[in-house]
């Protein structure tokens, strides 16, 4: 056995295999450290029993909304979870229809030259750092909303900034999903004498559906994980918003704001929210992956 191993190491491929596998193992160890570390830091929060109300603390914290007042030992994550979801859903609600229509525009309406320019613009904007969107939101959008309905820094501001941020991604992924629909399908629809609107709505969109959905889910994951842009424009008050104009604090912003000085259970609760976000974002990416695979299969079979 030993001799065989040594023999193996003597060949060039064996050496490569061994050293690369070692490298991979090292990296996996490092990355696993990150996950384990997250879990171990969050552990006290996850298991601590609530002495006051009975039952598990985590459960209470998530569902009964005792509010987020670390100084008073109250760690209710519910308002921030709701805020995170509200911001994400709001952004998707705005960005999805607009992005989708822009994808359609790029694929079916824009002239070739204009489409190229438009794509360039979208690519450029997809690469712009979130902090720049935050800066723009803080100096343009927030004062604008303030005039209308103070305080300005609000759920609405966060939704608008985020939807601007994910719009280019959604438009580009929808356009490429539409482009990957087999050509025969389109020519077939034309040959049937369908109206252009029907071609797009009844033939092309359903065929490109899973690609579009996958792109949207990825955008949603990005919106959920975004920290800086939201932190800068959302006002960061921990509450369940009654209207669009009330400030909110999302989970990521909470970590950024409080991590510097959190200790004990407070710190554990921040890590727990990080863990929670990770799981949700991972679930979303996994869904996107499954849908993307479906799309590829579909394309291949035709």
């Amino acid at each position, binding site marked *: 056995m030993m001799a065989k191993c040594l023999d193996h190491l003597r060949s060039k491929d064996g050496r490569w295999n061994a050293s690369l596998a070692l490298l991979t193992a090292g990296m996996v160890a490092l990355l696993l450290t990150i996950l384990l570390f997250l879990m171990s830091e969050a552990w006290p929060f996850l298991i601590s029993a609530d002495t006051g109300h009975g039952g598990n603390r985590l459960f209470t914290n998530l569902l009964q909304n005792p509010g987020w007042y670390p*100084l*008073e030992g109250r760690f209710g994550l519910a308002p921030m979870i709701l805020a995170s979801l509200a911001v994400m859903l709001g952004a998707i609600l705005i960005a999805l229809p607009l992005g989708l229509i822009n994808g359609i525009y790029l694929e079916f309406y824009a002239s070739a030259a204009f489409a190229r320019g438009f794509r360039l613009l979208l690519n450029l904007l997809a690469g712009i750092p979130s902090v720049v969107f935050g800066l723009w939101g803080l100096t343009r959008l927030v004062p604008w909303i*303030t005039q209308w309905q103070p*305080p300005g820094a609000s759920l609405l501001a966060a939704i608008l900034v985020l939807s601007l941020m994910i719009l280019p991604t959604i438009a580009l992924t929808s356009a490429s999903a539409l482009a990957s629909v087999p050509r025969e399908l389109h020519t077939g629809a034309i040959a049937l004498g369908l109206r252009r609107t029907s071609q797009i709505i009844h033939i092309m969109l359903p065929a490109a559906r899973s690609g579009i959905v996958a792109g949207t889910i990825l955008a949603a994951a990005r919106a959920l994980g975004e920290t800086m842009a939201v932190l800068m424009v959302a*006002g*960061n008050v921990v509450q369940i918003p009654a209207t669009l104009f009330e*400030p909110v604090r999302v989970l990521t912003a909470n970590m950024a704001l409080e991590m*510097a000085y959190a*200790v004990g259970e407070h710190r554990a609760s921040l890590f727990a929210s990080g863990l929670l976000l990770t799981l949700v974002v991972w679930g979303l990416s996994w869904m996107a992956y499954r849908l993307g695979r479906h799309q590829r299969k579909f394309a291949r079979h035709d």
Partner: protein
Amino acid sequence: MFQRLTGLLLAVALCLSAYGVQAADNRLILTGSSTVAPLVLEMAKRYEQQHPQVRIDVQTGGSTRGVNDTRTGLAHIGMASRNLKPTETGLRVHTIAIDGVGIIVHRSNPISSLSNTQIIDIYTGKIRNWKDVGGRDLSITVVNKAEGHSTLELFLNYFALKNSQVRPSIIIGDNEQGIKTVAGNPGAIGYVSIGAAEFSQARGVTIKRLPLEGVAASVAEVQAHRFPLARPLNLLTGKSPSPLARRFIAFAQSEAVADLIADQFFVVPR
């Protein structure tokens, strides 16, 4: 290709560690209170001028961060704009200046004073419009500090409030952010370090300070021990600070920096 890359990485790592050994003796890292930071930054600049081989880095993040970083060793010296809590053991406190916490509003706001009850009512959400306290018809934007900042704790203590009773519209971190937020919103009210507020006003930022219990929120009143909401600005170290940290703290407590403290609108402790 891979051998060469590995070699390169090793070389880089070696260089880095050499750097580290050389750099460690002459570097000082301070973190903590955003109230103390601007003052210490000026002190550090002067100290560096006198000792060119020394490098002092100052970062903010709130008093509690100063306490924590000093305890974990991330910072050589912590900055805190409050006294230590009973749970925060193992640290030494070195007071370098005195400051107050004052209420600020936008400069265009016609209100010239608020009673303590009015302030409490505004902060607990009972009063939501300036016209209820004699001002214009404009809804009030309540600016509150994030937890972990001693200015918040001082404010809550003074008004006997719990943070859960406060109904804020915006949560801010550093003093500067509070000033910026109030300066950009005509209906806003906030509370910040008096030193920081006076410093900003002197440069034309559109805020104004309101008196507290009839005492003007100014450096002079803090100095005269008349202003009710005053606090020490402290530097924190572990039980056995490095020689450099010791020297810097001695410098920060000496007469040589009295003018800097005055320039930043703080009070030299007696």
